């Protein structure tokens, strides 16, 4: 709760500074998210093995964030076809850190505890660096994660370089994957080549993140 209060407070300050007089609560809610080109909000969460993980422990490395809900058909689309696992393996083989995050609240569809997350990881042959549990939605709210999946890429300096959809075909149909542009691998290869990220902001698609009410 404290972290969330700090996030809200800093967002409030940023919104006030940016908007001047006439700022309202809606505007604050809309600005309380990770922004491309700006520092990535800090993350401190327990992973599926019970270990506390922070974003700062990966300073100097490129980090991918993937919002996950194993019961969501859009997540199933990409895991069922092996698309997410392939992206995870390719990225981590190149030294990129891949953090899968579950912001589902307890009692909500798709919420998982550590054991369930480990079972999911084994069943899917998923290859993230860690599976982080965010039952209070603290990281989800800090990043403005709206959907599962919802992807972010953070560069070694800690700047958000991509935010948005997993690919260019908003659908639940795995047959659409081969034709779609996969935004995260594209951003990672451009970053690795020292190029600007050509597509760095896209509308995410998927199920809504099942935050606590």
């Amino acid at each position, binding site marked *: 709760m404290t972290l969330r209060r700090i996030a809200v407070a800093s967002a409030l300050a940023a919104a006030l500074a940016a908007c001047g007089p006439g700022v309202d609560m*809606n*505007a604050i*809610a809309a600005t309380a998210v990770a922004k491309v080109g700006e520092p990535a909000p800090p993350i401190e969460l327990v992973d599926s093995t019970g270990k506390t993980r922070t974003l700062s422990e990966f300073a100097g490395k490129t980090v991918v964030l993937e919002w996950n809900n194993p019961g969501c058909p859009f997540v199933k689309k990409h895991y069922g076809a092996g698309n997410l696992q392939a992206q995870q393996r390719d990225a981590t083989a190149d030294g990129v850190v891949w953090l899968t995050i579950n912001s589902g609240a307890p009692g909500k569809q798709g919420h998982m505890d550590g054991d369930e997350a480990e079972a999911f990881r084994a069943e899917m042959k998923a290859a993230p660096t860690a599976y982080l549990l965010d039952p209070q939605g603290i990281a989800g709210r800090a990043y403005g994660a709206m959907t599962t999946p919802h992807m972010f890429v953070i560069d070694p300096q800690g700047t958000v370089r991509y935010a948005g959809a997993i690919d260019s075909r908003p659908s*639940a*149909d795995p047959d659409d994957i081969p034709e779609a542009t996969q935004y995260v691998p594209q951003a990672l290869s451009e970053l690795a080549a020292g190029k600007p990220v050509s597509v760095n902001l896209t509308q*995410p698609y998927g*199920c809504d993140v099942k*935050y606590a*009410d």
Partner: protein
Amino acid sequence: MLRSFSAPLLLLLCAALLAAAGIARASSAPVRTDHLQSRLVAETTAAVPGHALTLGLLLEHDPHWHTYWRHSGDSGLPTTLALDLPDGIDAAAIAWPYPHRLEIAGLVNYAYDGRVLLPVTLAIPADYATPTLPIRATATWLVCETGGECIPGKATYAFELPVAPAADTDDRWHADFAAARAALPRRVDTPLAVRMDGDALVVVLSDAAATPARWEWFPEMPGVVANAAGPQWRRTSQGWEARWPKSDYFTALPADLAFVAVDAGDGGEPAAAMSAWRFGTIAGAVEPAPAAGEGTGGGVVPDAVAPGTVAPFRGWPAAVFTLLTLVVAVVLVVSTRRKNRH
């Protein structure tokens, strides 16, 4: 035994069977999928050459389950309908009834629940001479439980509609088509002027008699405004102006941006008497009108000028738009430079 039937009785029986089959054929059978029953129906009992024919995708949701509008909001997927029709018959896009705003834990969706019909209109050519019109269609959707599970759905429908010189309304769906028509936004001839100003979309409605502050506003496409926020209207000397926080996924103003506004009346709940409008937009820098009430929080330089992002203001030639866009761009650049000098 068939032989024991008299010939006239047999004829009568055949006629009755044919008539029954004819009626049964004038809509697809209902398809039951997860938490949804769907069917494709025709508004009339026959297709009439030289006239429009309206079909409808009739969706009946289980309680607490919903499907989505043309813009699903922060999550979800719009319903799609692909029609397979004989050559020469064209179908328009779905004419979307206005949706309901569904807010769950700070995320907003634009959705339908209960029983709703999504109409599509076909133009039947005057020379269409075949005795029946075969209609095949595939619909896809995402059906979600409020605050819970989502399940993608798909169904195909097929039926044949008789072709006749005249047709009656099919009483079975009359109320569904009427409800859909009542919920179709009426097109407003005067577009909204829109421009980006810092972190917000500024929307200008040049109609002093309008009451936009009490309407519910729906952006027709994602990636423009923050769904969880709404437009904050204030009076100006010429009408109304709103700031609407932009979407976190805003990249550029789409040329065909439009908004649907719904006047829920005094009750709040959608009622038969409510009105809905569809506003096109025209991108440009309308000179900020002096506020009638509080002062403006101005001083923010427009951060993006997108030449070519002009709204579908039907009836104007493209050249006028191009010229207008250029003028707007020049005005913006000049005003930006002036502001920067201060």
